[in-house]
């Protein structure tokens, strides 16, 4: 796969691709088995991340896919991040984001197109990909322009969030996981947080396990 193609994939992930290039890439996905195989690997990464029950096979598959991605050429660094160790991680980031876009914009691959992990690892051709009509180059992980994107309300709540995390510490013993939302908040939600309608509060659902354990 050429460097230019990788850049186009990266741009697609970053939401910086033009509509024309997006259409071109989608058409090429329909005919380029290597590109399609890569796309499918990303799809499988997404499946690994999405599976609900933590199945053993899924996690093992994740590890294999992660290794396969690491063997690929790393993406050129983005401005502002220049440490060497970000290279392998950036590949996975692209994988995850492309996979997400594939799921949310393209829809799941049909049963007939499913692959074994061995097929994917070997990079073998996969079943014909149907070009989607609505492939939008705006995955959630990059749709927000960071600079200047935060509203006054968001900035105002930052101080309470930061103090809350410091005051409560790593409540529950989960360590750094406590602080992940802060990092997330710095981008995805910086264009305005979601408001909850008072009337849309969750219902008090029955807890079939409550009190039984």
């Amino acid at each position, binding site marked *: 796969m050429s460097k230019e193609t990788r850049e186009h994939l990266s741009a697609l992930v970053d939401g910086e691709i033009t509509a024309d290039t997006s259409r071109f890439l989608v058409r090429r996905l329909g005919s380029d088995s290597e590109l399609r195989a890569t796309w499918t690997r990303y799809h499988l990464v997404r499946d690994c*991340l999405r599976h609900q029950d*933590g199945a053993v096979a899924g*996690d*093992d598959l*994740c*590890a294999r896919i*992660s290794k396969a991605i690491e063997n690929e050429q790393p993406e050129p660094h*983005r401005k*502002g991040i220049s*440490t060497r*160790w*970000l290279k*392998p*991680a*950036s590949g996975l980031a692209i994988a*995850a*984001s492309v*996979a*997400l876009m594939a799921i949310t914009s393209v829809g799941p691959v049909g049963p007939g197109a499913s692959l074994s992990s061995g097929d994917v690892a070997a990079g073998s051709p996969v079943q014909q990909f149907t070009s989607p009509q609505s492939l939008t180059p705006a*995955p*959630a992980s*990059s749709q927000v322009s*960071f*600079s200047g994107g935060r509203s006054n309300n*968001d900035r105002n*709540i930052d101080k*309470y*969030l*930061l*103090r*809350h995390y410091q*005051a*409560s*510490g790593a*409540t*529950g*013993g*989960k*360590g*750094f*996981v406590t*602080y*992940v*939302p*802060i*990092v997330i*908040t*710095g*981008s*995805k939600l910086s264009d305005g*947080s*979601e*408001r*909850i309608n008072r009337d849309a*509060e*969750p219902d*008090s659902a029955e*807890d079939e*396990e409550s*009190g039984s354990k």
Partner: protein
Amino acid sequence: MRFRAATLMLVAMQVFLAAQASAGPHDTPRQMLERMTAAMSQMSYQGTFVYVQGDVVDTMRITHVSDEAGVREHLVAVSGPPREVIRDSDGMRWVLAGDESVFEDSGFNRSFFPELPIDQHDQTERSYSMKRGGSGRIAGHQAQNLKVLPRDEFRYGYSLWLEQHSGLLLKWELIDHDRDVLAKLMFTDVRLGSEVDKGELKPASRLKKFKTVESELPSGRQNLKSKPRWQPADLPPGFELTVHRAYDRQDEGIYEHMVYSDGLAAVSVYIESNPSETEPTSEVRKIGTTHAFTRSAGDLLITVVGDVPAVTIKMIGDGVKTAAP
């Protein structure tokens, strides 16, 4: 002498961790949680993980080092806009490289890496049902699953996958009362102990050129002995006051901060003099998996923040009133 003491402490810590590790496959859920707490704060580890929440996917890198120089941690996003969180003996810094700013909050002078004990009150198991799940491999490590499920709608639960020997958290899922997964985090690679590259503790951004933004909130003084002057009329079952800080100078207004926790989840309640004449919207806002609520009460501003469902934030926020004498 100080070095020797530190070395002895490290050895003692390793012996402690080894003892924890020797706890076999018959650990109770509570023992598993305790091992996780110890591992997350006292081990050195480093790895890449993916965080998924709804349609948001983010890849991050964590480096956590615990050695004779103390505990240091660096959390950095490696996809999307550059963002970092750095925690060390200087406190906590939230680096927003896109804005070229560093947000600091030095007003909370507490020993760094405060870890509330898992079972700080006996309420924990009344609020959550805990059970061991299956086992599997994550990021090349054998892992044991632990499910911590909420008994009511006022808190979230967790599905945790812990490294078999150390108890280190390898996969984390946030679960609501209906057992739906709200967010998940999973390592794709992880290094332990001496394999950790300490060079990654350095910030990825050039902080010296960045603008430092200090939190506007006053520091206040820790004050668990005296009762808060305001308190929620209703608290969800199991929540108790764990932190109380107050700041009160007649010419500078009022600030009071309370943290209520059930041992796993925490909610902050802030009471401040309201310098603005603007009426807050009194709506619950969702920021990731965190909810926030602000309302005014006379000349006071009440803000409630926590990693709990919106119904809990609203219940606490609506009920804040002057405490009975």
